[in-house]
């Protein structure tokens, strides 16, 4: 009898221990499963992100690339990448990267849009010598230079700043470090094209307005109309601009453009040169502004691009001796944006620029001494935020894409 009882007791306790041990084991396993699941998710996510980065790199190297990757082994998992054109008109592409690892799948979707130079608040190939960005300088939008970025006493960059060459501090990092509110990347090579202005000609022939065979073209924008003439003293011819340049491109071949006025709508002025360094130059004879300033009218759709094969200058004339207002994105393919006779002209007030400057070589707009401005202008540049998502018609593109949205 006692033998049976002993067996029951032992069997009972064994059962009890087995149940408890199993429960403890289950709890431990589930605790470990937790971390394993998290690890698997993290790895599958990393694979998907890597796939998106690989695809972005392929598109960076070849903007037409849309092959994608299929079942490509990666990090002991697999990645699949597809590229779709989701907006053929604007050439918006979407990269969908799927990372799979041990039953877990993560998806990353990246949208890419063609990149235009007009998005820059400031771009230069050459900084024009040893020019320092100082603590009194603020750049409000995207910035890029192919040159060194020389900084002195904390200049401020509100947009993303990129440079091909390195940052140079005047004294030390702690004394001169810039404030990068939009991030900073070094080693970004973004060359300026050499034929973007020339390539505007066939577009202007197609459905734009073209001037050619003239030495100088005088353009005065007046809302919906454009007045033009070919000499200083000749009378203006007036045309209805939306009818004359339906695609928004006004092109002056191998000549000088002198312009001013009030722009309504979206237009780009192209000015080319066939080799004469004086041609392919745009002079701003007076204010050139939007009919509706987007700072006052946020829904304004007025946009202007001024694209010169050589340079864009603010004319040394009486209207420009007391401030100049410019609403445009300015592109200088071989030259720069500057003030005519910057070192001999009178003190001319402020350059109130709303837009951006894309130039080959940084040019001077005035001279300065210990007492302040000695000649020319003080700079008051503001970025037109709309240029982040819109650009004047046929404004030169970088030839590549930029990431506009990253979903993960």
């Amino acid at each position, binding site marked *: 009898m006692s033998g049976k009882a002993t067996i029951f007791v032992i069997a009972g306790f064994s059962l009890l221990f087995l149940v408890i041990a199993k*429960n403890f084991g289950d709890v431990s396993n589930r605790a470990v499963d937790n971390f394993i699941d998290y690890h698997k998710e993290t790895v599958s996510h990393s694979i998907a992100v890597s796939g998106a980065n690989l695809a972005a790199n392929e598109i960076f190297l070849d903007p037409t690339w849309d092959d994608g990757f299929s079942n490509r082994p990666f990090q002991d998992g697999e990645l699949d990448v597809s590229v779709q054109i989701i907006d053929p008109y604007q050439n918006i592409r979407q990269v969908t990267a799927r990372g799979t690892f041990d039953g877990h799948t993560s998806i990353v979707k990246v949208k890419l849009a063609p990149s235009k130079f007009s998005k820059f608040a400031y771009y230069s190939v050459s900084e024009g010598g040893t020019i320092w960005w100082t603590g009194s300088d603020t750049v409000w939008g995207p910035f890029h230079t192919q040159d060194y970025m020389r900084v002195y006493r904390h200049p401020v960059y509100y947009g993303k700043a990129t440079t091909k060459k390195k940052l140079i501090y005047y004294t030390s990092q702690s004394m001169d470090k810039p404030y990068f509110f939009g991030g900073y990347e070094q080693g970004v090579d973004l060359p300026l094209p050499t034929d973007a202005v020339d390539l505007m000609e066939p577009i202007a022939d197609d459905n734009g307005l073209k001037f050619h065979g003239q030495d100088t073209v005088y353009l005065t924008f007046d809302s919906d109309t454009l007045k033009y003439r070919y000499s200083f003293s000749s009378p203006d011819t007036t045309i209805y601009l939306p009818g004359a340049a339906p695609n928004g491109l006004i092109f002056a071949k191998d000549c000088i453009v002198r312009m001013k006025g009030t722009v309504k709508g979206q237009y780009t002025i192209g000015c080319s040169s066939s080799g004469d360094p004086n041609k392919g130059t745009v002079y701003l004879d007076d204010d050139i502004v939007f009919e509706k300033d987007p700072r006052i009218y946020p829904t304004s759709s007025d946009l202007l691009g001024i694209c010169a094969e050589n340079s864009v200058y603010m004319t040394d004339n009486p209207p420009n001796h007391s401030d100049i207002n410019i609403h445009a994105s300015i592109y200088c393919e071989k030259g720069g944006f500057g003030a005519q006779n910057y070192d001999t002209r009178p003190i001319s007030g402020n350059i109130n620029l709303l837009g951006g400057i894309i130039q080959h070589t940084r040019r001077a707009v005035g001279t300065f001494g210990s007492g302040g401005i000695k000649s020319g202008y003080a700079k008051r540049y503001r970025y037109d935020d709309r240029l982040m998502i819109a650009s004047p018609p046929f404004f030169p593109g970088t030839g590549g894409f930029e990431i506009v949205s990253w979903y993960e």
Partner: protein
Amino acid sequence: MGFTTILDILGSIIIGGLLMMIAWRLSEAATERTFNNSGELSMQQNLSTIANIIETDFRKIGYCDNYNKIPDPTKAITFADTSSLKFLTDVDSDGNVDSIFYYLGPTTELLSTPNPRDRILYRVVNNEAPIGSNLGVTRFYMVFYDALSDTIPPPVTTPGIISSIEINLMVEKVAAFVDSAAAYDTIPGAFWQQIRLVARNLKNR
């Protein structure tokens, strides 16, 4: 009834008592173990769930399916402090801009719970009323870095300068088996850290 019978009864009582004590002790130990293990399991599940949610949300800072609605993603972080962050995103990928506000409630909010350190980590989408559940969060703090990977000292007066975020999260069990101050000093916790979280939309343009 003889002497041996009495001995048998006494012996049985002693052995039975011992067995009962063993069973009682076993029960208590099993209960404590179950409580602790289950608590740790819950704690780890809470931690990984919160980490997942935080990672998913923070990676989408500045994201909008209609990217034209956040033309300048550098302005996506609207408020940042060591334990709170408010930013613009598109929560449900419907192309509309939403805001998410993460912040840590005070310990006084959870005085009724045994653990004196636990707090509610709030996640408020748009203008919803703040709702939180006690998942045992005792620490949630962030360190912000600028574009040159230098630490930005709190409070962050200009959130646009943030380039990457270090996230630290500590979760503890909401109750110890033995409810004493000493027990909470040694209560196990689980810690998760994202050393550098870069929201890719933040500086993509």
